[in-house]
């Protein structure tokens, strides 16, 4: 009896299920497209996830990625909340003084929304690359400006300059930086004469492979702007290339090779393994002693204008070029 009832009503339940499913599928697709829209107030800043209106000059800023931490300090604003650094403890050493006493709101990849809310900020700087999902919740806490990536220094500077009402300072910082780059190019041309442009290779030694940072990466693009060339074997307009086998050592040969790595026993072991390989000893850069270790934070992790300037400092020093003050 029960089974009979069951069979006849199954036709109905099938039809209902099918129509319900299609409605649900449609609604989830529609809701996927619709979310990401922003508020309907007046617009002031156009950024990666829409437009945000900011009233007055923000005083309590929370920065949610390394480059934003750096840029805020550069613009003369101390954030009321920052995210943890990727190395060297809670803050990078070069920002230790500036950020002493500033509370941390968690990891760059997963900041604690509760802690941000408790800080009662009036501006949040986030990154679309990292915080796209939580953007709507962030903008309910405070007006939120979203920078497209985490390593685009000029973009970060521009957006934060606008948001913090310090556009003059932002422009001045960028002009200074560009002038330093131009100065480097001129000096390098004068110093190296016909050998310029030198080809350059940028390596990151990891625990089980070596990364080649190309001209699409942050440091790589700075090197590009400075006028360095790339060896012919390097792909163009890409970010990074993993070298998993020591066979590819010849690929990373160049006039100058910069490398950085983490202070970790596995990484050090791997570095030893790679540098003692006969192919490494065959590198031009090795034979002419043009292998330089550089600071991991400034060249890869900082992502802000202060870090970029420190990278330039190291480059000027390495090549013995003088800066005009």
């Amino acid at each position, binding site marked *: 009896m*029960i*089974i009979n*009832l*069951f*069979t006849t*009503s199954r036709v109905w*339940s099938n039809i209902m*299920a099918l129509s*319900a*499913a299609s409605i*649900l599928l449609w*609604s*989830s*697709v529609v*809701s*996927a*497209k619709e*979310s*990401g829209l922003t508020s309907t107030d007046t617009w002031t800043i156009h950024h990666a996830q829409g437009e945000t209106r900011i009233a007055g000059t923000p005083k309590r800023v929370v920065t949610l990625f390394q480059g934003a931490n750096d840029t805020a300090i550069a613009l003369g604003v101390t954030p009321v909340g920052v995210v943890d650094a990727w190395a060297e403890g809670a803050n990078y050493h070069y920002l230790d003084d500036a950020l002493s006493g500033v509370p*941390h*709101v*968690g*990891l760059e*990849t*997963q900041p*604690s*929304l*509760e*802690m941000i*809310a*408790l800080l*009662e900020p009036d501006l949040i700087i986030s990154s679309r*690359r990292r915080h*796209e*999902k*939580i953007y*709507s*919740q962030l903008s*309910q*806490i405070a007006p939120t400006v979203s920078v497209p990536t*985490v390593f685009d220094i000029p973009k970060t500077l521009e957006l934060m300059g606008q948001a913090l009402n310090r556009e003059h300072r932002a422009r001045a910082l960028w002009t200074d930086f560009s002038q330093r780059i131009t100065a480097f190019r001129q000096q390098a041309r004068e110093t190296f004469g016909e050998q310029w442009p030198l080809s350059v290779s940028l390596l990151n030694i990891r625990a089980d492979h070596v990364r080649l940072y190309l001209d699409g990466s942050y440091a790589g693009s700075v090197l590009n702007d400075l006028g360095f060339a790339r060896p012919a074997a390097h792909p163009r307009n890409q*970010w*990074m290339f993993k070298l998993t086998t020591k066979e590819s050592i010849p690929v990373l040969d160049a006039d100058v090779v910069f490398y950085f790595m983490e202070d970790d026993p596995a990484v050090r072991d791997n570095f030893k393994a790679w540098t003692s390989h006969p192919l490494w000893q065959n590198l031009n850069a090795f034979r002419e002693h043009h292998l330089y270790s550089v600071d991991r934070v400034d060249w890869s992790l900082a992502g802000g204008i202060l870090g970029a300037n420190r990278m330039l400092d190291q480059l000027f020093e390495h090549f013995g070029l003088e800066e005009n003050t």
Partner: protein
Amino acid sequence: MNKRERFVVGPVTLAVNYRTMAISAVLIVVCLALALLALSVGSVTLSPIAVLEALMGQSSGPERFIVETLRLPRVIMAFLVGAALGLSGLILQALVRNPLASPDILGISGGASVAAVAFLSFLTPWLAIQWLPVVAIAGALIAAATIYLLAWNRGVSPVRLVLIGIGLSAAMGAATTLMITLSPITTTMTAYTWLTGSVYGADWDDIRALAPWLLVMLPLVLSQSRTIDLHEFGDALATGLGLPVQRSRLYLLCLSVALAGIAVAHAGAIGFVGLIAPHIGRRLVERQFAGLAPVTAMIGGLLVLTGDLIGRTLFVPLDLPAGVFVSAVGAPFFVYLLFRQRY
């Protein structure tokens, strides 16, 4: 206390077991209590009174925001995801007639994982993150369909289904690893968090996307209670009792995949819930699906809710994915259960 009462309400007949009702009631209370606890703790601890006030709109300020906009959707999401996964596992275990089956082992989570990791690694510059659940569900459905078709040989036997599911699951694990190896490093962490399973960042939009599915599927699943019980008897007996075994199996499989898919789509590949929750349920109440299902759903919800609670309070301000603790707690418990039961 195995007394049963029968109530007839229109075309629906309810056979009610008092012990099951009692345990379900206790579980409901436990769920509410745990939810209240989850709403109270976090980066800042609020008293339960403050939480209730915030829920009823009688307070303001950051506390109300935290409870209403940050914690409440997260708690609800964790519970719904756990419930869906628990139910999905229960259906699968009945279909396959083996208590070791679960959506993550049979490749359903694997398919969602491949799709989600591909999305996170390569498509995020162009597509908004809100597409992730859609992509993940599509992956789960495609994987399930592939497994079913490959297992088809004049019908689908549970044995073949299991074996092909496990084989494809291994292959999909390899594909996921491949994509993580090829991905730009900025997304590797996100991909891994997704693979472990996390309800971080759950908001009301997500609940609005998830809840309708569950509201529709729950009655569908419950209406199949008798059929699922029949499947446990074996194909021969079930056919003899009038059940169109192949069609029914396909339909139930679809329900199970849909439940697991929607859960995984929103919370990542949380493992073990679909495996453990039915077991705990079976030790508490009867084996019949109608009574077991709500209990299993609640246990699944409690598991994920607890995992998330531990994850976000243990290492404040770090927010560890719920999946870590669900596995950490659930997996050894499962091993213990099985050693005792000797399945």
